[in-house]
């Protein structure tokens, strides 16, 4: 974006100041509807949320007074906050890796020239269009320990039944599998588009030099995909950190709080537990964490591209 503005010729400087002011005005005019929404629904809630985190505000209107950073101190000593934050990070790690790798494999398979490309593209991407509620319902049924499709299949193979959503050791993985099926199509599409943009002469030259298919994949395809991979990982981490819907609908944070993400904890403290001020403080701690991760990514990607 910045490069395009710099390289553009600058006829504006030649115009009279009045016409420039006028075009500025109409620019603001066009931006106003967006700005109004931006201020009312984003900037103001962010500022007000921060103010709220410094108060003891509750849903019932009690303890409205300022209490400084007491909420933050309490949150940092709250074992359940740390546990739910840990769950969110755990989910982010174990979901981002397959969501990137599986998408890459799927795109690579399709790119080697399977017949009926549109059908594959459609079937890989279609789940992404479903609402989270629909996906959760599908998988809740399939994971049902007694009647579910998956356990039916397992017992057919002579394997033991798995209490998918009721076993604290398995539940998070079950949610990752559901999420993978649901959202991998988006990453797949980005990868596929990037692969189809790699110039064919690279492969031609490589095969003339005697490089095999694997060699070409690792030495041409993967390096050429680097910017796309960086972007996908970045988007995926941010998307995974927001995890709430599937968990709330499939396990409600259970069993034993083993899948409760921090967003759900914020929701519970604020809305079912009434403590709006305290839950605002937790969300600011979470916000801080996201900022740190984003800055880290920014630094890493800048170093790589420099």
């Amino acid at each position, binding site marked *: 974006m910045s490069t395009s503005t710099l390289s553009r010729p600058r006829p504006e400087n030649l115009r009279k100041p009045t016409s420039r002011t006028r075009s500025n005005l109409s620019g603001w005019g066009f931006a106003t509807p967006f700005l109004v929404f931006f201020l009312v629904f984003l900037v103001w809630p962010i500022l007000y949320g921060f103010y709220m985190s410094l108060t*003891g505000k*509750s*849903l*019932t*209107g*009690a*303890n409205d007074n300022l209490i400084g950073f007491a909420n933050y101190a*309490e949150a940092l000593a*709250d*074992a359940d906050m740390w546990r739910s934050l840990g769950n969110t990070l755990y989910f982010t790690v174990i979901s981002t890796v397959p969501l990137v790798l599986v998408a890459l494999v799927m795109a690579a398979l399709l790119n080697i020239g399977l017949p009926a490309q549109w059908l594959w593209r459609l079937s890989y991407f279609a789940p992404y269009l479903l609402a989270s509620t629909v996906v959760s319902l599908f998988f809740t049924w399939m994971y049902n*320990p*007694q009647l579910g499709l998956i356990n039916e299949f397992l017992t057919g193979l002579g394997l033991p039944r798995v*209490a998918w*959503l*009721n076993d*604290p050791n398995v539940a998070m993985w079950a949610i990752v599998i559901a999420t993978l099926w649901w959202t991998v199509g988006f990453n797949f599409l980005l990868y596929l588009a990037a692969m189809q943009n790699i110039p064919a002469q690279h492969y031609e030259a490589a095969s003339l030099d005697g490089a095999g298919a694997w060699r070409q994949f690792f030495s041409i395809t993967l390096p050429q995909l680097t910017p796309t991979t960086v972007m996908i990982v970045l988007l995926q981490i941010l998307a995974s950190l927001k995890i709430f819907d599937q968990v709330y609908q499939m*396990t*409600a*944070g*259970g*069993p*034993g*709080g083993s899948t409760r993400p921090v967003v759900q904890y914020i929701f*519970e403290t604020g*809305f*079912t*537990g*009434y*403590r709006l001020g*305290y839950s605002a403080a937790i969300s600011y701690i979470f916000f801080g964490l996201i900022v740190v991760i984003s800055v880290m990514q920014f630094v890493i990607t800048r170093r790589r591209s420099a």
Partner: protein
Amino acid sequence: MKQFESLTGKQLSRRQLMTGSALLGGGLLAAGLTGCGGAAQAAAVQDIGFWHLLSGGDGIKMQAMINAANQANPGFKVHPTVLAWGPPYYTKLAMASAGGRPPEVAIMHASRVPGYAPGGLIEPWDLDLLAENGVTASDFAPRIWEKSQYNGKVFSIALDSHPFVMFYNTDIAGKAGVLAANGQLQEVSSPDEFKAMALEMQKVTKAHGLSFGYLGSGSQMWRLFYTLYKQHGVDMELTPGQPMKVEREAAIESLEFMASLFDDTIAAQAGDISTGIAEFARGGSGMLFSGVWELPTMKNAGIPVDAATIPTLYGTPASYADSHSFVLPRQLKLNEDKRRDVYKFVTDVLKGSLSWAEAGHIPGYQPVVQSQAYRELTPQIHYANAADIIAYDPESWFSGSGSDWQTYFAENVQNVLLGRDKAAAGWDAFEQRTNTILSRPNPV
């Protein structure tokens, strides 16, 4: 587009069309606004908003009672809104009250009132107005009336009490030889006697003696636990700023007994609520611990079913229960006429709550319970004595049916019931969790 063309007789420019639609939209809006105002001014029929969380078999009964009340009272029309049971319902009710747009009347579990009354989310009932409609304190059993009060004011009017009871299959019990002479289940008075009886039934079913599904449901685990705990003749108190007052030994003994039931012989080791209900309904076990609200399911299943309160195993008869109660959410601007209609509606429903008893619940309104028609309802009459021994959740802003506190109970205790954790460890963790909540600022 076509309409506009025919109206003006010529092609419209884009600008004209937009102006036209804006006018039309504004006109509709204005019409809508005056429409609302007009209806209220005419006061022909008052619209009463009513929220509840009854979506099962009892939801159908509730709808019938609402229809009956609407028909008997041409002056108002009650519009029910059914929301999902548990935290979603209570979250929305609190938000609506806090935001000043609540329904005129709502159902609330009596155990949740301490979380709503102190913050002013609900308003007390006017006893004089209730009496005008023919309902007074003497129409309720003492324990239930006591529960309807908070700080000396009546905040909830109990439609029912719904205890946690024991259903049993008379056919299986008969074959196992555990029926008494009167055709009802023989009395047992200790944990060992109970287990022996369950084992007899297991020999008949070849599957399990008892069904009790609990996986993933803190409410369900809590119902049985609190029944057994209160049977020890002990109390539990939750006072903000203090550690919880509890008899630790009794709690651990109750948990250990529960865990000992899930040995895959007496009862299935792991199963959720619906698995337990399904097992009992198809004759896979002789007994089921469940809320009374499952009665219609059992009757429809076509099994010979009877019911009783949960046997007294630790000396003191006790039965976990809660009450579906009517509450008045705080109104931003109180409409006195509507308030009067709400009193009429609620008292009408109370008086017609015999059909509510058919759904399994014990009506709160005593004239119904004492009626001949109720006495003829079986098996309801076999557990009607529960109203005298019911135990509500310990009072606090965070306890009660469908509260997060019950979820915390499951988080710490489920592994005990699954045999993966010691009862003492599970209980201590839950107690610690509770003490953490108690040590925090009270938001109501």
